[in-house]
């Protein structure tokens, strides 16, 4: 069990110093998956045989003294909307229940080099949801309290790390889908600047907002994973052709003179425990030399509607290809082509996906486009400008990730608007394409984790990692305990 408590970096160090073998790490993870997956439901697909084979190869390479990347051989898992060659990629939907991609996503390809992939992780269907309850393969349960949600949409990615079922995972974040589950499950997650991780092979939900990112036990791990998954990719036109830093170098140094903004709007509606923990965390940072001011960004009030219009509009188009013609699910009985479309999409998609498709189709319709989609894009520009202004003075923004700690399974499923409202603190980051991080900063009275969100400038990942690492060096919140 001790092996499972290691961070990815710690496991890598033991592996490369031959204290432990890759096979041992892999077997320990697979055993934990066997023991826990029935109750947590973090995995949709477990690649036991392949993982063990990969582990054997890596052990041989280590024995032969071959040079390898720092995290090579540390078992990981990938959210099931990131394509993996030869391994089915379902997006937690009946629609793609049998889809096996003939290609790897860019990020999956990068990790697969000297990597052990344990399997594919549960999520909200097509990444649409904040609680991981919309999965066709059943809800994911929070390792801290099985009656509670892990947060969504990368619920499996966060729960797997928290429960020791993988050393690190990849998630995707369109409106908070990495940060929210990281917060609810007490792990560290980063949504990178839009364009730093290729979207090639990430099954699109909302193309202008989606971004792949890591979830792990520490900011240090996140930095190492970032080194592996960032970079320019010619297959993604929105991938940025810039010089990518060595993110692990950012871990050195301190937070002295860092300027942090507390945006008042992000604290509206926050539970007392969340409010107190986040403010205590900020105080911890100021105690270490950072400066902090409270400011206001009134445009934040418009972020949620703008987000739901833009993301749903893009989704309505992105998900139109699932029509039963080429791959994935097709209804068995139908009259003609139109009926095939109707029945396939009716039977293949869950309620939340249908709701977003309808919302987006409506927002793009002739006569409504100007009032919804166009206006939302205008709000988007204003939100970006708002952030630009804040970042003229500040290095980062600190806020809660979510107004509450993990809520109960079934608690919000009957009220989509209430569910959407919780995303207030996270969606602006995607709208503006900024990096955003979630790290554990406390527990509520029930012992549930609370997350601190750090928002940076474009390409400000290094600042976020430095602050997060400094915080984690001074505190123990990220050491959790749910995996036991």
């Amino acid at each position, binding site marked *: 069990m001790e092996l499972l408590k290691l961070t990815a970096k710690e496991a890598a160090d033991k592996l490369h110093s031959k204290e432990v073998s890759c096979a041992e790490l892999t077997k320990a993870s697979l055993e934990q998956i066997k023991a826990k997956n029935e109750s947590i439901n973090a995995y949709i697909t477990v690649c036991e045989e392949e993982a063990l084979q990969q582990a054997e190869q890596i052990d041989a390479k280590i024995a032969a003294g071959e040079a390898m990347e720092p995290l090579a051989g540390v078992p990981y898992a990938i959210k099931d*909307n*990131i*394509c993996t060659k030869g391994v089915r*990629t379902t*997006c937690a939907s009946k629609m*793609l229940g049998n*889809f096996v*991609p*003939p*290609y790897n*996503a860019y990020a999956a390809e990068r990790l697969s080099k000297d990597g052990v992939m344990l399997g594919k992780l549960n999520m909200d269907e097509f990444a649409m949801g904040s609680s991981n309850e919309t999965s066709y393969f059943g809800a994911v349960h929070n390792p801290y309290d099985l009656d509670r949600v892990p947060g969504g949409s990368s619920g499996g990615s966060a729960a797997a790390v928290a429960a020791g079922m993988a050393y690190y995972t990849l998630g995707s974040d369109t409106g908070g889908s990495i940060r929210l589950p990281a917060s609810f499950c007490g792990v560290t997650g980063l949504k990178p600047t839009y364009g730093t991780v290729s*979207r*090639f*092979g*990430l*099954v*699109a939900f*909302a*193309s*202008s907002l989606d971004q792949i990112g890591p979830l792990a036990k520490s900011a240090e791990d996140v930095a190492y994973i970032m080194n592996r998954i960032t970079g320019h990719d*010619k*297959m*993604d*036109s*929105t991938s940025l052709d810039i010089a990518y830093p060595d993110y692990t170098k950012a871990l050195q140094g301190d937070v002295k003179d860092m300027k942090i903004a507390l945006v008042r709007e992000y604290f509206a509606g926050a539970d007392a425990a969340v409010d107190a923990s986040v403010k205590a965390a900020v105080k911890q940072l100021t105690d270490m030399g950072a400066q902090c001011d409270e400011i206001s960004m009134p445009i934040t009030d418009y972020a949620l509607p703008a987000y739901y219009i833009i993301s749903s*509009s*893009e989704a*309505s*188009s992105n998900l*139109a*290809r699932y*029509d039963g*013609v*080429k*791959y994935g699910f097709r209804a068995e009985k139908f009259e003609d*082509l139109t009926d095939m*479309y109707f029945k396939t999409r009716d039977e293949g998609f869950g309620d939340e996906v249908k709701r977003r498709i309808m919302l987006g*189709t409506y927002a*793009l*319709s*002739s006569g409504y*486009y100007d009032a919804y*989609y166009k206006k939302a894009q205008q709000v988007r520009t204003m939100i970006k400008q708002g952030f630009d202004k804040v970042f003229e003075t500040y290095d980062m923004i600190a806020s809660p990730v979510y107004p509450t700690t993990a809520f109960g399974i079934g608690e919000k499923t009957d009220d989509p608007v209430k569910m959407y409202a919780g995303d207030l603190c996270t969606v602006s980051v995607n709208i503006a394409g900024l990096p955003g991080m979630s790290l554990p900063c406390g527990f509520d009275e029930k012992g549930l984790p609370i997350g601190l969100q750090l928002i940076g400038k474009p390409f400000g990942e290094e600042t976020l990692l430095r602050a997060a690492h400094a915080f984690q060096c001074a505190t123990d919140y990220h050491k959790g305990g749910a995996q036991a």
Partner: protein
Amino acid sequence: MSEYEAVIGIEMHAELSTKTKIYCGCKNEFGGEINTHCCPVCTGMPGTLPVLNEKVVEYAVKAGCALNCSIANLSKQDRKNYFYPDLPKAYQISQFDIPLCADGYVDIPLESGTKRIGITRIHIEEDAGKLLHDASDTDSLVDFNRCGVPLIEIVSEPDLRSSEEARVYLETLRSILQYIDVSDCKMQEGSIRCDVNVSIRPKGQKEFGVRSEMKNVNSFRGAIRGIEYEIARQTALLEAGGQVVQETRRWDDAKGESVSMRSKEEAQDYRYFPEPDLMPIRIEKETVEKIRQELPELPHVKRARYVSELGLPEYDAGILTEYRPTAEFFEAAVAAGASAKGASNWIMGDISRILKEKDILIDDVPFSPQQLAEMVQLIESGAISNSAGKKVLETLFESPKAPKQIVEELGLAQISDEGALQKMVQDVLEQNPQSIEDYKAGKDRAIKFMMGQVMKLSKGKANPQTVNALLKEELDKR
């Protein structure tokens, strides 16, 4: 009928002849095995992304320059959303409100003179696949080879007034696109397809009538027939006191009629929005200028030059310049020493006839323009007769070698030696006293008969001009 005037606008879709498709690295080639020229990107597999082929932009800008358009220095691509099995993403990446090229024109040669037709816009987009309905008894199958083939859509102003103007417009556009080498414009391979907008109005009226849009027009002939059908249909409607309704119609080429597809009320809402997977297209002014300067001589300029510099008749110049390879063949022959009129006559006459018989294009002619020039020179110098030239040409098509060699091998050299011919003329005159009588009596046929006899005697090699002169000379002596 004559009291109405037609108003016609045409949207022409032309496939660009880039090596690869518009958003992936697949070959852009016609006629591959079904579903072999496709990949995860052009078949819209989950998680794949489009990457714009820069050549497509370059080709479209070329077309824009050739059609006198202004080129947008910042343009974007948009999604046009609709469901159809040949459209794997269920949206077509096209351009909506900011096309690459806009506000151009093309001058078309009509019998009444040149007419300027406005070009509203040119935009780039991807082609869809093809449904195969006959491959299975129960299902339709899809061939994705054509998915992602780059297209430009050239939209005209409603400036055309008859099917004849439409024909000349389409032929002019085709000729220009071939000249600038952006599309091969092969109709039979579906390289060009049209949507045609037609309305009619009483002559003299300024306001447009209600128009119909006709889709699925896959040939120029179909476009002309479709336009004529629409004009007749709308005229009959109005004359019967009815009204034209705004609608989309489908042209059925086999039946020679258009049928209603959907009315304005049922018009599809394509929910266009900016394609988030692609960055805006930026084109520097210098790039446009460079493309503009590198444009080849366009057909109408060439045509005018053939008339003014080479002294060809308008008719010849028009035919020679319509298809760029023809013009190139002609110019190369002239450069190699053929007279312009001589080369023109042979290209427009026997060469074009034989091409038609063999069903090949001038691109595939087995001999060189230099060989044609040599043959023309042999005729013009009197070394061989015109009819011997035809034989040389036929031989050139079969086994191309130096025309001089062919002349030798076939013994086609003309006898122009007066001494030898004199003897033959004498012989013929002596054997045909009656013909001399007839000639003296003013019967013109007689000299033709005697000419024929000399040619027969010379086995067709006698130089007819010389024989003619000698005959007259001899007859006048008698």
